[in-house]
């Protein structure tokens, strides 16, 4: 399958670590993807909430480009971009009139043949190979100690039928990838609640309130980190929560690709873990310690067992 890569605006800006970790992980897993040449913004919520057609058209342009490059599918790590592209693909598929009008508007052929994948959909099929790679990889023990709250937000589970998660309210796909990395997913309640992304700039207060609720629940559930796959969510949870650190404790917020990267033993810098507002280094240290002590315990147990065995002989 020939795969196109659509980074989207955020991954060239505030979310560059998502881009970096994405590429790093893709290399490590041998996933070949080519960035769409001269891609443009997907239009985000602003476009379609002010003019529906514009929203579809801006997204469709990139699909048309990928199509022209002869791709079967395009992966859009940014959940927002993914959602726009996927929505566009579906609407065009369902609305013949729209489909007919688009080539004219885009001024290029468009047959809507390219599939749209989000990062979870991309990584899920590799869960097994990840598990094998990490089984004896250096990252294993560290990540193996990590309790993660998988946060889907809206765009990975909604709208139903577009987002491609396995379940709207109690999805498990992210957990599947996380546990393939050796991490331990926690049971929590806010996995599919909205963080307020689309009002991030225009109405900070709401965003903070919503973000808070998510973070608190993650802490209640005892998560070491919140795993996300959406720059908006990340910005809100990571950046906004320090903005209001006084409201309560903080939890590191990392991208799914970063988690996988760590598990695969890719260097934290290379994954851009240093770019977060909530400092991730203490966590990494903490995890390392846990890992060593865990190994120590294991060793001790083994030794004890051995001696007992010896005693029997």
């Amino acid at each position: 399958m020939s795969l196109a890569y659509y980074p989207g605006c955020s991954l060239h800006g505030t979310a560059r670590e998502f881009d970096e970790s994405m590429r790093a992980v893709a290399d490590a897993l041998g996933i070949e993807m080519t960035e769409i040449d001269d891609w443009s913004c997907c239009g985000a919520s602003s476009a379609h909430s002010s003019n529906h057609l514009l929203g579809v058209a801006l997204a469709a342009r990139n699909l048309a480009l990928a199509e022209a490059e002869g791709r079967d599918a395009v992966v859009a790590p940014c959940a927002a971009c993914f959602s726009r592209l996927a929505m566009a693909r579906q609407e065009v598929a369902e609305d013949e009139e729209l489909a007919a009008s688009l080539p004219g508007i885009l001024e290029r052929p468009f047959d809507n043949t390219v599939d749209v994948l989000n990062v979870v959909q991309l990584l899920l099929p590799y869960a097994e190979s990840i598990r094998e790679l990490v089984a004896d990889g250096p990252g294993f023990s560290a990540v193996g100690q990590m309790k993660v709250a998988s946060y889907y937000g809206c765009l990975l589970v909604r709208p139903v039928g577009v987002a491609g998660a396995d379940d709207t309210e109690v999805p498990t796909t992210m957990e599947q990838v996380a546990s393939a990395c050796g991490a331990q997913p926690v049971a929590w309640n806010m996995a599919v609640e909205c963080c307020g992304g689309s009002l991030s700039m225009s109405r900070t207060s709401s965003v903070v309130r919503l973000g808070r609720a998510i973070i608190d629940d993650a802490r209640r559930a005892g998560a070491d980190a919140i795993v996300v796959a959406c720059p908006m969510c990340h910005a809100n949870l990571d950046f906004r929560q320090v903005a209001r650190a006084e409201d309560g404790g903080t939890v590191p917020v990392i991208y799914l690709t970063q988690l996988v990267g760590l598990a695969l033993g890719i260097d934290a810098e290379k994954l851009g873990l240093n770019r977060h507002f909530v400092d991730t280094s203490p966590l990494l240290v903490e995890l390392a310690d846990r890992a060593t002590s865990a190994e120590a315990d294991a060793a001790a147990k083994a030794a004890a067992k051995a001696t007992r065995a010896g005693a029997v002989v």
Partner: protein
Amino acid sequence: MARIGVFVCHCGENISRTVDCSGVAKALADHPGVAVSMDYKYMCSDPGQNLVKQAIEEHALTGVVVAACSPHMHEKTFRRAASQAGLNPFVVEMANVREQCSWVHEAGPATDAKAIDIVRTIVEKVKNNAPLETVRIPLTKRALVIGGGIAGIQAALDIADGGAEVVLVEKEPSIGGHMSQLSETFPTLDCSQCILTPRMVEVYQHPRITLYTHSEIEAVDGYIGNFHVTVRKKARSVDERLCTGCGDCQAACPNRKIPSEFDAELGTRPAIYVPFPQAVPNIPVLDRENCTLFKGRAKGREKDLCGKCKEACLRSAIDYEQQDELIDEKVGAIVIATGFKLYTIGREQPEGLSGYPEYNYGEIPDVISGLQFERLASASGPTGGRIVRPSDGTVPKRVVFLQCIGSRDPEKGISYCSKICCMYAAKHTMLYRHKVHDGQATVFYMDIRTAGKGYEEFVRRAIEEDGADYIRGRVSRMYRDGDTVKVVGYDTLAGEPAILDADMVVLCTAIRPHKGNKNLGRKLSVTYDQYGFISSAHPKLRPVETTTAGVFVAGACMSPSDIPDSIASASAAASKVLGMFSGDELEREPTVAIVNERTCIGCFNCEKVCPYGAIEHIDVCNRDNEICGHVARVLPGVCQGCGTCVATCPSKSVELQGFTDEQIFAEINALLTW
């Protein structure tokens, strides 16, 4: 030579206002074959009918055409009149000049011409009408009732008390159905067991009722008055003649941790068990799925691993080798009363339905179904009537009831209202408050539907006297929050969020038909709706009849219904059956197909199209009495007279009495004359 009488009715002015009735009568007078033609103000009145009778006698009429209203209106009237005058009723036809002429056209030549056409057409038809005899079908005065719930019990008792034999078949080990699981019943709060168990015993002891429990319908053939039914009596592993119901076997069974169906999985039972103390019959059944001995045998063990029940039984009634038994019964009528089952919100759903992920698919332990609450509240229940949480056995202080779970929720696949939930939710709040005085009962509802005697008062009582809180709105999400359940709802009347912490949540889940209905429907060629509820022959006029003659329906297998409804429909069905049984044979209109066996080529295309399976194969023999082929024959009892076979027959060897090719041919020619 035909001698037809034509009688044109003015219907007061209804016809004569726009149609020149006497003109029509005159026109027909000259028509070949018409012996007498007259018009009168009210043909259907006694003097009118007498005109017809006199004419029949005076003119020795061979056929009668009444030009008046629709045959659906007065055909029977005039056919009766004719037969009183000694004329075969089936040579009498109506010419519909009211509904389909005078009422829909202005007065004028065109309308008169049409009226004449209509009458002449029918005259030509009647010339070809054959005097017919009503079809008589032998009748077995014995009824089969399928399902031993309250509806089945009521139907069986009514029919048996009416003097006819009844075969009652129940697939569970005991009769009683869902009603036996209820604690109290609305709107009177009388104990369900107390009013039900006497009826159950009555059934058991009734001299004219044969009861087969733990049994199912294997096959049905035949037709109204003459059904042949095969009942599969599933192996009980207990000899019913020997068993005294002492219960020693149950006590002896080592395998006691099996979730009890009767207690809606809240309690447990042994592998050999009587579902509940008042079960009828009070004879245990061995659940081979969960029996150590049979599990061992299934694994191919040489030696049996257990046998404790057999050892314990002093009457040695336990029979591990018992096989399913097939029993043939001949009955004249069938009552379907298979009842209902409940929707569950879980991930696993039958085709067409989906569960409630927003309520975590019911994976929160203290979210239970209404039926489970009934068992908790029931004195005979697993907790002896103490209302406690399944998770930790503590008494819940805040109980939230959610109505319309599944019901009225097209997204989950069910659009209809389950009808009983509003009432039993109110009942639950009362039962709860009566037992937990400091407890808080809250109900989320969309609408309260209390159409029934004393129902509205009942719900008001729950609110006004027992202090149940009613919040109008659907709940959006339920979380597990520590050991409580967070219920995220909205009060649409207050316009405020309603986010509650509950110790227990009770879901008023929708009523669904048994999936078996479709299968049964096919066996009986009875139609069912898109959900699988049995459809009645007419929603208003024939509520307890089905599309198959001789098959009736009662209770919740038709549509969600409460106990009073079920009993009403059961008694209605019973009275229909008794009515059927009142004569010694069945009579039906002779509008049935008959095969000309001389020209039939036995291609059996008629059989392929017959909706009722009314076609049978019969052998034809040559001179030396060797079978030299097969031809079709119509079972007059089964045929409903649609005539699809007639139009399908290539050699025109089937005729539909009352609508023969000759009659229709004559009509077409009469319509389009030159």
